[in-house]
């Protein structure tokens, strides 16, 4: 059975993610151990909370060079929610914070983006089930998923200027990047482990990479 490492850097609850990997027949390993990350078949980078705090915690583990090496070697890595946001260059959430910079783009406030638009009354956090519009249906994560499928979001900041890494987005006043990828690096703004059968299918596609 192939091992999916789930990076443990002290943010968020990994119970559901672990359960969903197991339900799909995968072997989850919640770990902050660099040897385990190196020997795993693929890596999930979770995350909830504030960007700066999470980025600091991840840096504090000393695991970033390990992750970088694995990604450079071609190992599939998927960031989820804040874990996806960390893949970008920077975030303006409570200050200015550097991300991993593996994908082009920044993370900015959804509230600011909606201000002064006809959709200014949309609630932030963007929380609930929203639909996916495909930008690039050939993305392996979207295999077998009908366009318009619903997935579960909980977030207040979103990726902007992510250019050609955009694979699918959700309409919420602005186009909220929902699935991004570049080569072996993937990201989901929504929670696949909380998105019913559609989410499990997306996670399963990642487990098969």
């Amino acid at each position, binding site marked *: 059975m192939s091992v999916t490492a789930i990076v443990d850097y002290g943010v968020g*609850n990994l*119970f*559901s993610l672990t*359960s*969903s990997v*197991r*339900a799909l027949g995968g072997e989850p390993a919640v770990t902050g151990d660099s040897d385990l990350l190196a020997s795993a078949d693929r890596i999930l980078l979770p995350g*909830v*909370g504030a960007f700066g705090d999470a980025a600091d915690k991840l840096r504090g583990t000393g695991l970033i060079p390990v992750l970088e090496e694995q990604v450079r070697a071609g190992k599939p890595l998927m960031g989820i929610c804040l874990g996806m946001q960390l893949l970008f260059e920077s975030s303006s959430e409570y200050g200015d914070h550097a991300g991993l910079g593996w994908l082009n783009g920044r993370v900015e406030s959804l509230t600011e983006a909606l201000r002064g638009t006809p959709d200014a009354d949309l*609630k932030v*956090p*963007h*929380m*609930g*089930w*929203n*639909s996916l519009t495909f930008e690039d249906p050939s993305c392996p994560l979207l295999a077998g998923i009908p366009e318009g499928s*619903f997935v*579960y979001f*909980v977030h207040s900041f979103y990726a902007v200027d992510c250019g050609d890494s955009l694979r699918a987005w959700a*309409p*919420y006043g602005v186009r909220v990047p929902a699935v991004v990828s570049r080569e072996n690096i993937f990201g989901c703004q929504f929670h696949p*482990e*909380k*998105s*019913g*059968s559609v*989410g*499990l299918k997306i996670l399963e596609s990642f487990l098969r990479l």
Partner: protein
Amino acid sequence: MLTKRIIPCLDVRDGKVVKGVNFQGVRDIEDPVEMAAFYNECGADELVFYDITASFEQRRLFADVLRRVAERIFIPLCVGGGVSSVEDFDRILNAGADKVSVNSGAIRDPDLISRAARKYGDQCVVLSMDVKRVDGTYHVFAKGGREDTGLDALEWCRRGQDLGAGEIVLNSIDTDGVKTGFDLEMLRDVAERVTIPIIASGGAGTMEDFAKLFQLKGVDAGLAASIFHFREVDIRELKRYLAGQSVNVRQV
């Protein structure tokens, strides 16, 4: 755009799902884990579990039920019942829940909402309110609807939002268990006071009741128990019906 949500609610006591009528005469139905898996399959958008046990021993049993539920369902899970401290949030979230609902505990200690929101984020804190009309005003009731706190519901919902609650479950004691429709008047009055999402609870009897509910601005979800548990309303069918009424719902 976000869909309107349909949420089955499961009251758990002694490890079993129960449902009361007007908060009295509770009776057993089924295994909570099997019921949760069933709802996960048939298109429920979220599940709410309330722990209505009292003793410490039963509380451990509930935590075990919760973990087994969280292993099986892959939709958001909100859990409440006897939550009175941030430690209760820790315990419930560690067992696999995504949100925690506070009720009497927040009435006794409103700052609990802020402390929990600071630690886990607003989206994690759900303020659940049991409300009944008393002398022409809305009163908040505590202890499962048994005790009139005298607190004005329209002030309490606003205060809850200001303290950092991310959602409100508004349960009308006046319509609860009666199955003649949600308390649209009460919901409208509360929706005018807050901007956070409102989950309507109490009174759903038919599919039409949900269609009427979702015409109200500010109401994001409809919660019900017995009509789903007893299969009087089938969630798949309900969603097909609502889609036909131009309500944006997630169909599976």
